[in-house]
């Protein structure tokens, strides 16, 4: 489910993410800074070793709406931003593979760094998404959770 790219490109997808594709897409002639964050599956959590994959579950329409809210908020706070791309995987994602990518562009680096940081933090706090940790022979919901909030309150 991808929005037609204009200045924002938001997607909740079962397909592999490409940080390079998003980094390239946000490039604009008036921008001297692109910041790209890629969140990847790691082999442990606070309560478990030997994680081999994560499995994400959501309501895609609601998650996409909440991602738009994140982008609306980041544009209010950093009006100098140019392009913003936020893609999140759903379904199973294997070890060391990207689960989420945020890419932003701005004329200068301070805005790009701060806005990208806000996007990933606000996404984690405000988008209805749940992950299971999978290991050999079992799985469980992640216990690294936070009560859902609105992006504007982040």
């Amino acid at each position, binding site marked *: 489910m991808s929005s037609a790219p204009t200045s924002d490109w938001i997607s909740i997808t079962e397909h592999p993410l490409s940080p390079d594709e998003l980094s390239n897409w946000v490039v604009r002639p008036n921008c001297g800074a692109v910041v790209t964050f890629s969140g990847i599956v790691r082999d442990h959590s606070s309560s478990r070793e030997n994680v081999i994959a994560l499995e994400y579950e959501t309501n895609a329409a609601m998650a996409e709406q909440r991602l738009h809210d994140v982008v609306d908020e980041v544009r209010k706070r950093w009006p100098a931003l140019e392009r913003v791309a936020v893609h*999140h995987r759903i379904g199973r994602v294997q070890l060391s593979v990207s689960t989420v990518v945020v890419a932003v562009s701005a004329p200068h680096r301070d805005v790009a760094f701060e806005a990208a940081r806000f996007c990933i933090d606000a996404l984690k706090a405000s988008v209805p998404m749940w992950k299971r940790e999978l290991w050999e022979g079992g799985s469980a919901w992640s216990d690294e*959770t936070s*009560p859902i909030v609105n992006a504007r309150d982040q």
Partner: protein
Amino acid sequence: MAKLILLGPAHEAAGRREDNFDGPTLDDVLQEAVTRYGAEFRALLEISQVWLNGESAAPTTLVDSHDEIMVLPPVSGG
């Protein structure tokens, strides 16, 4: 009948992803859901948010067949 949508750990606790309830209020739906699904769901509901058509709503809000109630346990995206 209002539709209840159970997401993430809530669907596991309830044993289903969707269900239907008569109401008449949001709170009535949630009370009936606890009766149907049991203690694990009750515990999860206490730490979850509940949205009516995508937004927070008062427990006394009347619900009908056009309404979608979503139980959102604490999130773990990213």
